[in-house]
Structures are given as structure tokens and as C-alpha cells.
């Protein structure tokens, strides 16, 4: 609510802890109100109300509390919640964790102001996602297809080529048969300088004009880190539902985000949940991830790739675990495949796109898509199993048939999974799939209808 009152300034900071200010005796305050903070040296910072209580109001400071002096700091209550100025002109720009340009190309004139927390899409107004997005990567497009309006996380591990995969998707993704424009919103949270340079370079090389890059470095404020996904989703929604774009959002790394949330929670002395993460981590992540989707009466869509590192490659860690509980499948980067030198090291077996079926097939990709995907999956699963058997009992125990499967499995990894930075259209991927399937006798392709085999084999 905007009270229409003049803003009020206080000088009653009681305590400073972590990124938080604790204030006493605040007469008028709104929940999640925007705050201006003036330091004795004239520096201005901004913050937001976390707890609105006359006796103890808590404010999180976007830039952090470093060097704030308790007695001299002046806190001004704006009488309004935090809103982001949004504009189509943000496309092509690089911005910080508060949505302000940092690329030296001048200010952006906002077309509208939106609350960054957003409002949940009315579930009754959603349409089921069902339009294929081509990421250009075979193991995603063929086996775990992404559709407009889906949230599909990438589960990775320390040292794996996560940023390469993220950048590759950001620069290569396309949509087919759609009139609407495509926009890529890339939110980087707590990344290293080195990663930042890598992303900048990738985006420059790809010469894409439809990308917005939000960056928050490891050394930047953690409160801004908490804002980035919300800002990214807010602009994505604006472009999608008011300007008709298909917004593809990539957020990396959710682990850094969750750690920032944990830090704030600890500073508030909240009851810690698993591994110290707050008990509301599920809900908090959901308020980001669930903003994707499509609305019946709107042309555009919001699609999301959250990218995260699993500490110690542990999928049961709260961040991948809760992410899995909210999103619609997962793309799994695999250390073994990486160690064998394959890129992108996407392992199809634990990967799954839950919305794939609606986005593939006749008129979308190709009629034989589902069956080939099932067949490749079955053969690869079988091949991997055979390898384990070989490890126990040796190659000698194998029949010719089994040997063929092993050969298929090797080639599948070398040619299909190991695709490098090249972009493959879905037709390329389908054709390559048939090339590999021809290694196996025709009558063993049991997952594919006979007529289809006869046509393509």
C-alpha cells in the first residue's frame, strides 16, 4: 500500500549484524518497504524491510553494511515497496543486481515499474506448455526436450563445465515456428571474475542482441544476489506477458543464491533447517521457479534453466533436492563423462524432462522422435549395465549381441553426447540418432514401430 504520506527519517539503529540493520521505535513501516540509508560520509545505500514491527524493525541492506556507523546512519522509509523499472530497451544490456546498467551505455528509461516479488500466475489461467525449444544440444533436444514455459534445472558438480553449458544454451537456443520474439535473460549470482569474463566474452562473440545480462560477483553484496533472480523474472514476465516475447531465463548458480539466503537467515537468528538452510528454502525457491509458464490469453512465455552445483556431487543436498521438487525434470552433468573427455557431459540416464511429450512429435519436431528417444535410452541403459557386468566377469562372457551393444554405447557417447560447442538442429540430432541405431540389427529396435523402422533404417 502506498500511504501517500511523506517519507520519514529515523536515526535509531539499534544493532548491525551481517547485512541487516535492526531498528527500534518505528511508527510507520510497510512490510518489504524500500529504504534509503544515508551514511555519515554522504554515501547513500538502499535496503528493504524484512520484519515490520514497531519494537524491532529489520532491514536488509542491498550493498551490505560494511562501514555503516550505528549512531550516525540515517534511515529513510520510502512508503513504498521495492519496484523495478522495466523496459524493452534492457535487451542487449549488462546490469547489476539491482537492475541498473553497468555497461557504460547510459541510463534506461523505464516503461513501467513492477514489484520484483511478482504475483503468482493464477493456475486456472495457465496453459499447459507444449512448444519445443531447440537448445542445439542433442542430449537435451533429442532425449530431454525443453518446452516453452518449462523450468528445467541443470545439476552440475564442482569443476564440471557448467558455465560452458549455460553459455552455450544462452547463445544457441532457438524456437521454431513461433512468431513471437525470443529474449534471453541471464542472471549470474556470486560468480567469480573469471567466470564473468567468460560469459561476457561468450555473449560478445555470439553477437546476440536479445540478451540481458545481470551480474553479481562473488565479492558483491549478498542481498543483491538475492535480488537477481527476482529482477530477472520480473523483466522476463514483463517482456513475456506485456510485450509478447518468449523469455528464456538462465540463473546460475542457485547454490550461491541459497547460501546468501542462509546467511541472512542466520543473521536474523532464525531456526535453521537442513545444513543450516532456512526452513522456508522450498517456498523461497518456488517463488522464483514457479514464475515460469504460459497464460491462456497471452502470446509470450517464460522458461527457466536454473543452474546449480551439487556440493560433493550429492543430489540429496537441500539445494538440488528442493530444486528437483519444484522444477519439471533435470539435466544431469556427469563427472565420469567429463573425465572421459566428453563435452557436454550430459548423462541421459538420470536426466528427465517431464514436459517433453507435449513438445515433440509430428508437427513439432518429427513423428518418430518419441520412439527414437525411448530406443536410444533403452540401448544406452543396457550398454551401461553391460559395462558393469564386464567389469565383474570380463569381456569373454559376452555374446556377439552384447558386444554390439557395447560398441553402440561407446559410439553413442563419442558421437551423440560428445558434441562440443557445435550447434545441432533437431533434424541433425534425429539423423544422427538413426545413424547410431543402424549399428543394431533392425529387428531389435523393439521400441520403434515397424513402419517407422522401415522408413528410416
Amino acid at each position, binding site marked *: *500500500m502506498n*500511504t501517500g504520506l511523506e517519507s520519514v527519517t529515523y536515526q535509531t539503529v539499534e544493532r548491525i549484524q551481517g547485512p541487516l540493520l535492526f531498528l527500534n521505535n518505528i511508527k510507520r513501516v*510497510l512490510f518489504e518497504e524500500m529504504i534509503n540509508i544515508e551514511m555519515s560520509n554522504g554515501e547513500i545505500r538502499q535496503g528493504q524491510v524484512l520484519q*515490520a514491527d514497531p519494537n524491532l524493525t529489520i532491514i536488509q541492506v542491498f550493498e551490505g553494511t560494511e562501514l555503516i556507523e550505528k549512531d550516525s546512519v540515517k534511515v529513510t522509509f520510502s512508503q513504498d515497496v521495492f519496484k523495478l523499472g522495466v523496459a524493452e530497451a534492457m535487451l542487449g544490456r549488462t546490469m547489476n543486481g539491482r537492475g541498473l546498467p553497468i555497461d557504460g551505455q547510459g541510463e534506461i528509461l523505464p516503461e513501467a515499474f513492477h514489484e520484483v516479488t511478482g504475483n*503468482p500466475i493464477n493456475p486456472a489461467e495457465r496453459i499447459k506448455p507444449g512448444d519445443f525449444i531447440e537448445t542445439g544440444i542433442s542430449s537435451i533436444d533429442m532425449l530431454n526436450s525443453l518446452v516453452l514455459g518449462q523450468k528445467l534445472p541443470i545439476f552440475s558438480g564442482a569443476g564440471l563445465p557448467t558455465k560452458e553449458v549455460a553459455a552455450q544454451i544462452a547463445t544457441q537456443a532457438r524456437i521454431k515456428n513461433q512468431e513471437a520474439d525470443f529474449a534471453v535473460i541471464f542472471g549470474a549470482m556470486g560468480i567469480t571474475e573469471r567466470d564473468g569474463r567468460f560469459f561476457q566474452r561468450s555473449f560478445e562473440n555470439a553477437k546476440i542482441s536479445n540478451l540481458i545480462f545481470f551480474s553479481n560477483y562473488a565479492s558483491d553484496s549478498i542481498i543483491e544476489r538475492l535480488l537477481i533472480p527476482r529482477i530477472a523474472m520480473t523483466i522476463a514476465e514483463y517482456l513475456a506477458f506485456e510485450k509478447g516475447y518468449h523469455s528464456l531465463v538462465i540463473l546460475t548458480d542457485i547454490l550461491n543464491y541459497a547460501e546468501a539466503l542462509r546467511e541472512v537467515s542466520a543473521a536474523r537468528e532464525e531456526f535453521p533447517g537442513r545444513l543450516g538452510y532456512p*526452513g522456508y528454502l522450498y*517456498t523461497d525457491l518456488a517463488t522464483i521457479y514457479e514464475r515460469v*509458464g504460459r497464460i491462456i490469453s497471452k502470446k509470450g512465455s517464460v522458461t527457466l534453466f536454473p543452474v546449480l552445483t551439487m556440493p560433493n556431487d550429492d543430489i540429496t543436498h537441500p539445494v538440488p533436492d528442493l530444486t528437483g*521438487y519444484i522444477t519439471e525434470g533435470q539435466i544431469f552433468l556427469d563427472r565420469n563423462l567429463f573425465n572421459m573427455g566428453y563435452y557436454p557431459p550430459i548423462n541421459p540416464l538420470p536426466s*528427465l524432462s517431464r514436459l517433453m511429450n507435449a513438445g515433440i512429435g509430428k508437427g513439432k519436431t518429427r513423428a518418430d522422435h518419441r520412439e527414437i528417444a525411448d530406443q536410444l535410452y533403452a540401448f544406452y541403459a543396457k550398454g551401461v549395465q553391460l559395462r558393469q557386468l564386464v567389469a565383474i566377469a570380463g569381456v569373454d562372457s559376452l555374446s556377439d549381441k552384447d558386444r554390439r551393444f557395447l560398441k553402440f554405447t561407446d559410439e553413442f557417447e563419442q558421437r551423440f553426447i560428445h558434441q562440443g560447442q557445435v550447434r545441432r538442429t533437431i533434424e541433425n540430432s534425429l539423423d544422427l540418432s538413426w545413424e547410431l541405431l543402424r549399428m543394431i540389427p533392425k529387428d531389435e529396435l523393439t521400441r520403434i514401430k515397424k513402419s517407422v523402422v522401415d522408413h528410416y533404417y
Partner: protein
Amino acid sequence: MIGPVVHAEGLKRSKKNSIVYVGEDKLIGEIVQIQGNKTIIQVYEKTSGLGIGEPIQDLNRPLSLKLGPGLLGNIIDGVQRQLKGSGYLFIEKGMSGNPLPIKKQWHFIPEYENIKEIEIGEKFAELKYNTIEVKSKDKLNGGEILGYVQETDAIKHYILNPPNRQGVIKEINEGKFTIEDPIGHYTDGNPIMLYHYWSVRIPRPFQQRVIDTQPFITGQRVLDFLYPIIDGGTAMIPGGFGTGKTILEQTLAKFSSAHIAILTLCGERGNEIADVLAEFKQLNDPLTGKPMSERSIIIANTSNMPVAAREASIYSGMTLAEYFRDMGYKVAVTADSTSRWAEALREVSVRLEEVPGEKGYPSYLPKLIGRFYERAGKVKAQSNRIGSVTVIGAVSPPGGDFSDPISQYTLRYANALWGLDVNLARQRHYPAINFEISFTQYLNEILAYWDKYPDIGGNWRESRKVIVKILKDEEEIEKIVRLIGKDTLTEPQLGTLAAAELIRDGFLRQSAFSDIDGYCPIKKTYEMALTLQMTYEWITSAIRSGHTTKEIFEKEKSIFERVNRMKELENLKQISEIRNIVAEKLEAYRKRKA
């Protein structure tokens, strides 16, 4: 004010659980604690921008549902705001929404049928009619039927006298009424309406529980055959992410033997709701041949909608179920996911600064879970009809580890456990029911039931025993294989592995998306099981006569292929044909032996 919790001062004579409007936007809230002069409120809407000092209005009634025609096919949030056709693309704070359609006219007829239930095996109930007219001077007890409106083609919506209302009818009329038009009057002058309110946290009263077992048929072989439950029973589905909880719940809502399905989607995905809505519009259910939307209600509180309303949604779902139960229907309630409900409770509890129990959940959580599952059951309602509520709750344990508090508390109250297994799901074996941990406590009752209908379930007892044994043996043999490889296995062991593979792939595995196999009639389930049982006997006989498993499977490849694909057959005759072939083979070995 922190998140969903607001502290208020100066509210006079406020009652716990009373509903209030908070602030100038009139956010809906509920009083959850009263401390001296302070009232603590949980708010069912987003509180950002709410200011200190804003007014609060006490509505002085508990959180209640408005129960009347217009519910079926609807989609509402946890506090009964209709989401369909509300005109809101986004859930905004202060969003208004009528609990029931207000313009729609209903044709009310003041009469109802006296129902006698006759069991006839699979179909359970044949209805016998003897119409009763409701008229002036009739004395009404609480919960009695006043008449009905034909709400959808599939379902008659019986209008019930409010459960705690007694009176004598002055007049009651047939005709077209909107929800706000009186359909008559009591002699005390008060109007008789098509709806009444009922508080969501209080179970609706009934005459008595009914102990008369009927199976709750799910159409899922692994459940109906291995872990069946009864009509009015309870089951929990714990499982890590992606193991198939939602798909299973939706499949049960679609295909189970219930008349009405209440889907409580509590803290889950918006896209799933879009999916259900789209599917229910087209899908004709095997019982009535009518679209699912005619006999289902969806309560939607996606994970990003306000948490307090998520907390309420579980109770709202249960209250709707009891309401239709009281009309004499069999109702299935699915709750996806009860873990998200418990988390919402925890979130509010933490903000209330309550002393935390296990893993931060409030110490009264086990009690609430118990109360929830205890609202299931088959009862003789106040209306004199027999109705039931069957509850199936999904549980989402952190890291897929069932030792978490919610799984453990629920285990004490749910009478069947359908545990989903991450590894099976990874192998794309659906439904990914884990055989080691799943159980049902209803086995004996259901065995006794099918004993009465030998032409359908006559062989179930026996084939279940055989198949369970094969699966158990397989587990043991697999352990050996993992240790020392396959080479040392004996022929009978290899035979068991092959049979188990056939059972898992050809019988237990069932795709929810298959046109023919999505729903498997109980008779077909039993026929398939019998065939598999005989196939196993055939394999063992052949091995005893000196053949190797490999030989048998290579030689009779086409028969095994047909056994494996029985699920794709619609005509039961075709299954018995396959069984006859197997029987001949088996007979040949028996003769040889003799």
C-alpha cells in the same frame, strides 16, 4: 509483521480461528493466537506493502467453506476463492472471489431416492429407487436431504440441511434458483438455502462408522494386486522428487472406483494444474463415461501462492470430501503434497515463536496428521446414506529418505504405504513402487471380500502368494549377483530371475499414459496374474526336466513375448487364450513327469 504473520492490538473479544480482514486491501487472515491484548493472525495473502497501524476487521466466524452447487468442475484456492473465470491472470492481494458461482441458476427438486446398496463384485453397487418427496410440515434433522439439483450429467448434488440445524419445513419449492435465492422456509421463518457453511477444521458429524469392506479399486495392477486398500481407507505415497507421486495421485483421481475426486494440490506446480484441467475436460472416466471435470474439484495452492492458504487447503479438501460423502458418495481425496502442508505449518509456527519440535516442525504436528487421516472412513451419514472418504496423501521426504518426520508421523496413521523408489523411477519403471517397504493392512479384509466373488477374485490369494515369493527370491538372488556375478547361479535361480523380469515388465509396470493400459480392470489384473503364475510353473517344470532357462526362452520366444504384452490386450478372451497355450505347455511337462 513478518511474512505471513501479523500481530494486532486492540481487537476486542476476538476468538481463536476467527476470520479477519487485514489492512485496507482486506487481506484474508485467521486468528491463530491470542496473548493478552495482542492477537496474532496468519494471513492467507501476500503481506508485502502492508503497513503498521492499518485497520483489522473481525468477521467473527471461523474459516468455513460455502457448500452448495457449483463446486464440481471448479478450481478454487485454499480459502475457496474460485480461480476459474475469476478474471485475474495473477493472484493479487485483496483479490476477491466468490466461493460459488452466483449467477448460475439451478433446478432444484425437493425429492430424493431411497438407496439400497447391493454388492455385485466389481461394480459394488446397484441402486434401488424409491422416491421420497420433501414437503411442508416435514421435520428435519441435521444433515438430512432436502432434494437435489442435477449439477452435472454425472452427479446429482443433494442439498443437505445444515448438520447442526433442526426444524420443520414451512414450505419448500421446486424451481430455478441461484445460490442466494431461498428454496423455502422453516416454520421459524428462516430461509432454506441451497448452501450452508461448514468450518474446515471441524470434521462433519455422522451417525456411525460402517465396517463393511469393499475394495477401493485403483486400476493400477501393482496396487490392486499387491497392496490393495479398502473404500474409506488411507494410504500414503512417499517418494523423492520425480518418482511419480503426482502422476499416481492423478491416475487414482481419474480411474479409481470413487464417484467423486477431490484433488488437493498443495504447494506444487502450476503447470501440473494446467495439465489436469486440460485432461479432465476431455477424459471420459471408465465408470460414468463422462468427462472427469463433471465429478472432480481441484483445490490449488501452488508452491508460490501464500503459505498460510496452503496450510488451510488440506482441510478445505477434506471438508469438501465429507460434504459429498454425506450425500452418499464414495469420495477420493488426494493430497499432493502433505509435506508442503507440514512445511507451511512449520513456517507459521516459527513466526509465532513456538517451541520447535523435531526438525523445527511444531510439536503438535503428529496430532494434526493423525486427525487428518482419521477423517477418512466409511460412514452412515446424517442423511442416512452410506458414503466414504478415501484418503491418499503424497509425502515428499527430503533427499528421498523416509526417516524424515512427516513420513514417520504419517506411517502411524495411514494404513497402507505405497513407497516410491528413486532407482525404479530412474529405470523408468512406473509406478515405481518399492516391494521391500510397501505394505497394506487391509489384506485380510480384501481377501475375505474376494472369497465371496470367486469368478473375479477366486485365484487372487494363491497367485499373490506365488508372485510375492518370486519377487522376494529375486531380491535375494540379485544380492548374490552383485557380489559374485551371474556365473555361479543355478538353473532354478536363473528361471526365477527370468520369471521375475516377466512379472515386473509385463505385469507390475503400467504406463499412466497408455490408452489401453492406463486403467486395468480388476478382472484383467487377476487374469494376467493367473497366467503369470502358470507361466512360472511351466518354466520351473521345464527346468526340472533338464532344460536351461536360456533354451526355454529362446525356443518359446513368441509365447513369452505374448505373455509380456498381455497388458496391451483389451479383450479378456485374448488373455485366456494365451493362458491356454501356457497351460498346454505346462500340462505336457506334467504328463511327461507322470
